[in-house]
């Protein structure tokens, strides 16, 4: 097989996988929330209601596609795809496994190992806001515009602590390549702890996680779509599959953020204390590393759901206060200490 064919297979595989995760997540969200609130949840379509996402999809596709009369048509149509595309594109640099040897050819389980993969993630998360803004503005409705307005202010505020937390990781590992960052996290330090970013950079991890929740518009930071004040915020006027794309894009986004968290702070595909490549064959090692990565990712996906149904929503001024007065100073201090430590130990 030529290289471009392998690349194509990797792209198709990881996008299909991302879609599948998003589909299953809509089911997990509803079942888990039901579990936490002592309800039953959707259990009619298929075993355990597993076919519920399919039923939802059919429903959304067959509904009438309404574009409000006073909406700006082109921008209104452009909004949902612009929201979903950046979330998908981030997967291009996430290493979802170590490597697999098929027919004597070593294949790295990552679509593209670029040396600026890290900054690529930051750049994409920065432009993800346009989908919400365009949708909100084009709808020409008060709720939508307020939702879009909140989205811009919120995302730009939480970009900074996220960037600061990520910078500490770059300082620690001295590279922008995600694959190398994961490789450096294998093994242990101080004798017992796994060599994970989480243990070396606990404060950075907390800042990153909070900022990630804000970037993904999840409760407790879902102010752009806050039902109790704004109906559903920026996508109030949307219906049928356009709304579906917004909701779906959010779950793809969650999958991406979980994958990035795992790669940066939890050792990516590696198991702590155990070197799988020693006792597994080349093919089974590739599959096992992918599965390990997926299990870790699944945990963070579940954490998103867990937090959503546990924590109440912030008020908007509290959200801004947390971002600017708590997370940014903390991030700066953390960056300063990390830089000092790295300088002293190198």
């Amino acid at each position, binding site marked *: 097989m030529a290289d471009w064919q392998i690349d194509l297979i990797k792209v198709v595989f990881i996008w299909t996988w991302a879609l599948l995760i998003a589909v299953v997540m809509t089911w997990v969200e509803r079942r888990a929330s039901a579990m936490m609130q002592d309800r039953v949840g959707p259990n009619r379509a298929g075993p355990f209601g597993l076919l519920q996402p399919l039923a939802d999809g059919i429903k959304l596709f067959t509904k009438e596609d309404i574009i409000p009369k006073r909406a700006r048509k082109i921008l209104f149509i452009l909004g949902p795809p612009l929201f979903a595309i950046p979330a998908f594109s981030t997967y291009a640099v996430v290493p979802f496994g170590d490597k697999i040897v098929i027919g004597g050819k070593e294949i790295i389980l990552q679509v593209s190992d670029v040396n600026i993969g890290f900054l690529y993630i930051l750049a994409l998360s920065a432009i993800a806001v346009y989908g919400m803004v365009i949708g909100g*503005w084009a709808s020409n409705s008060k709720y939508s515009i307020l939702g879009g307005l909140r989205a811009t202010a919120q995302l730009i505020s939480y970009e900074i602590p996220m960037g600061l937390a990520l910078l500490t990781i770059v300082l620690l590992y001295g590279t922008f390549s995600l694959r190398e960052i994961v490789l450096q996290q294998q093994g242990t330090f101080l004798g017992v702890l796994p060599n994970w970013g989480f243990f070396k950079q606990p404060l950075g991890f907390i800042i990153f996680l909070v900022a990630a929740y804000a970037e993904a518009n999840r409760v407790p930071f879902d102010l752009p779509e806050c039902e109790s004040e704004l109906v559903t915020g920026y996508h109030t006027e949307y219906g049928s599959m356009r709304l579906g794309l917004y909701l779906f894009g959010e779950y793809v986004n969650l999958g991406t953020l979980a994958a990035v968290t795992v790669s940066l702070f939890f050792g990516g595909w590696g198991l702590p204390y155990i070197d799988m490549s020693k006792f597994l064959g080349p093919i089974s090692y590739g599959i096992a590393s992918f599965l390990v990565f997926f299990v870790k990712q699944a945990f963070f996906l579940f954490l998103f759901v867990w937090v959503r149904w546990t924590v109440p929503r912030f008020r908007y001024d509290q959200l801004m206060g947390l971002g600017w007065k708590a997370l940014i100073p903390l991030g700066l201090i953390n960056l300063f200490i990390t830089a000092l430590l790295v300088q002293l130990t190198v």
Partner: protein
Amino acid sequence: MDYYFIIFAIMAVGAGIFTITAKDALPSALGLLTVFVALAALYLHLHAPLIAIFQISIYAGAILVLVVFVIMLLITPDEKLGTPQKNISYRTLGAILGAYLIVLLVIGIKGIEQLMVHRGLPDDFGHPSQIGTLFFKKYILHFEMASVLLLVALIAAIYLAKKKV
């Protein structure tokens, strides 16, 4: 012919013209976004991926988002932007400034013949670490000057925004 360059150059110039002629505020801002993306693509073509990413994350991701924020705050979709500048002295000044810039551009292009030689690039050209080394070794003075300037702007902004006592 360098088709990659031509496609994105046309994209940048076209989007730029759209930005200054659009009657609606948000589409105009989106035109500017397209300019930034096209420029980033051109930087990639010039083997400067770091600059390309900064172009996207700083200009498109931060500065333009602020512009969009103000648009969302002040202008509803039904509002059209006002008519072009009627004041004759402003228009003359604008024409003079524009002509001046075009002359500068032409002077710059005249020397381009000498520049168009193919040179091999150093091994890690455009790599983040190389840019970091240049910043903190060779151009440290310029770098610090820029940060002092930004600090001055920051202090001024805080002074202007603070409550009068």
